């Protein structure tokens, strides 16, 4: 696909900015969700501490994930905990590329490779490297595309990282606040589907012309 290198650092948008849907908070609607769904979603707010990754691996993974989703120190979504829990119970996507090991091993191997890159670039582990270097190291993996990276196809490593990272991030109710998605919809359902229509519990985009592509031109 048309990968556009350098997208990580490029945007002017700031992650703290959650003003597109002022006051929107899907989790506050949890009383309208069915019990089984509510339990599943709310359990995500307090995941258990990592047990699949070693402390070092967890530190590397956390730094990587925070970069991939531009997470800053306060109010972080617990990505590392959510991914660790999946790997600890073998909750994979149900397939792996023939030239990649299974997911758990691929995670461990790619984190070690990222640390090795950090040591040769900055003389520190990835987690201890300055943010700007972390971004450059990540960008270098994406830029390799289908090429080899420490014995793994870089594109498949990229797919592994982003798949797990996005699944964890966008499963969290806090992430739904910033994208205007109301989350679970049973048993209430929707009554106002259609262009320009909203339910009473949905919030209008305060900045509808903020097309990321247009802003770029």
């Amino acid at each position, binding site marked *: 696909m048309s990968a556009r290198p350098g997208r990580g650092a490029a945007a002017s*948008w700031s992650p703290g900015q959650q003003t*597109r849907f002022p006051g929107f908070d899907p989790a506050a609607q949890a009383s309208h969700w069915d019990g089984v769904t509510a339990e599943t979603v709310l359990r995500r707010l307090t995941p258990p501490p990592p047990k699949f990754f070693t402390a070092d691996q967890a530190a590397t993974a956390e730094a990587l994930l925070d970069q991939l989703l531009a997470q800053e120190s306060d109010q972080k979504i617990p990505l590392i905990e959510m991914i660790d829990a999946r790997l600890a119970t073998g*909750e994979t996507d149900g397939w*792996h590329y023939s030239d990649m090991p299974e997911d758990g091993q691929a995670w461990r191997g790619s984190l070690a490779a990222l640390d090795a890159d950090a040591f040769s670039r900055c003389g520190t582990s990835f987690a201890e490297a300055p943010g700007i270097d972390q971004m450059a190291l990540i960008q270098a993996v994406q830029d390799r595309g289908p090429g080899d990276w420490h014995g793994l196809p870089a594109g498949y490593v990229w797919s592994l990282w982003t798949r797990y990272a996005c699944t964890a991030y966008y499963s969290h109710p806090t992430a739904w606040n910033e994208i205007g*998605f109301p989350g679970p*919809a*049973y048993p209430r359902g929707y009554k106002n589907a*259609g262009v320009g229509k909203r339910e009473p519990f949905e919030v209008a985009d305060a900045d509808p012309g903020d097309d990321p592509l247009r802003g770029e031109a």
Partner: protein
Amino acid sequence: MHGVRDRNESAWLIPGDGTRTNHRLRRDMRRFADDDEIDLVIVGCGAGGSVLAQRLARAGWRVAALDAGPFWDPDTDWVSDEAGSHHLYWTDPRVIGGTDPVPLGSNNSGRGVGGSMVHYAGYVPRFHPSDFATLSRDGVGADWPISYPDLRPYYEQIEQELPVAGERWPWGDPHGYPHRPHPVGGNGEIFLRGAASLGIEARVGPVAITNGRFGNRPHCIYRGFCLQGCKVNAKASPLITHIPDALAHGAEIRANAMVTRIEVDERTGRATGVRYITDGAERFQRAAMVAVAGYSIETPRLLLNSASRRFPGGLCNDFDQVGRYLMVQGAPQTAGRFDAEVRMYKAPPPEVSSEEFYETDPGRDYRRGFAIQNVSPLPITWAEHVAAQGHWGRSLREYMSDYVHWACLGALCEFLPQPENRVTLADETDQYGLPVASFSYSQCANDRKLMRAARSVMEDILRAAGADEVITIERYAHLVGGARMAADQQHGVVNGNCRSFAVPNLYITDGSVLPTQGSANPALTIMAIAARAADRLIRDARGGAPDGPGPGD
């Protein structure tokens, strides 16, 4: 609804009190002993397996259908949440390769009673008459041993049983649907608007979602979580459309039973039953007939794992046909950005389709064609679409914050069957110690051309509807083939009635028997093929023209 209920009472066997499962029917279910030689054991309770079980149980056969996954209760097992639905997918390990590896799991493989239809989107178009003879008409693909008129009565039956809602269908063999079309949401509105302004025909439907009450199944509540399992019982899956009736007629559904091997008697050459693992113990169910319906990856894998002295290269594999000609549809997904809020997560993801580009167009440099449909990715799937453009970090978050402004279309391109696109056994083993499936996929030149053509039509439609930007991701959808039907055993694994060429009392009744795939979503056709195979079996058992030995002989 006279007629449907007489044939299939499932919708009336579901509780009408707001709960979704008839627990009494399950508690009172008939249970067969392992050493009782039943008339038929079925492997897999998805689209094909469930229809077969229901039809034959009604005809008085003693049937047990085994499924590796759970016997779902939508109230307690399913959630209105994307990540929380992971347990619906077949996630035991599988290896993918080839020049265009096809991701499995959530994308195309279910596990549990109801099969992949538990989390399928719910589009249920028929195949076109041309689909059954693409080789002689278009010089590509394969000819089926059966033709469209053979399936038409079964299409009509299943459309009533699901039931299907949609506008009158002008393409292929023109036909109507039992339920009126659903109102569309923002995404469907955009598709209709863009298509109208380009003069492209588009229609609402056809979807297997009740419009109005059907038996005790309620109306859809337009909540958009069809791909997570319908907690409402509005979207059809065999769990609610065929299994209840099968139970009421004495079938046993044995959930959490993973079949590991089909046994064949070396002396008679006939299948004797299946080995399976349940609760950690290996067991053997005797049966006079075996039907495999584990879908396009697991069916070939089970046959290959059932190798014996007589079948050293895998059961039914004397001519190296098992696992081959596996197909996926090229499913590029194009999204368009609108200043207005579309909020595509509302209303069912399946809404509007166009089959205007389905047939071979002599003016193009490719054969066969594609269909276009709405798809409405929820946030996680949408993030995959955005991340595929290369975004990460801040730019990913910024793009994602724009979610409510995007509309999305998906194409289904008729990729051609090729012998090297196949399942083999990997060195890796699963939790039961069995070799897992390795699935290799590579596109041919025609496939790539279709993908490009479909993409440009979708971009045109979205632009015509007013999109200021469009972005596309290349994906795949649906699996079919892998144990195809053919005129003879040199070219396929089963005949037109789904009976295997090699073992007279072994049938395959799932998506793996399809020789070509058209640009249609496959579930309706799989069910129709299974219903037809069932009719043949019932007729033969009554002493009609025998296609093969039935039960009791």
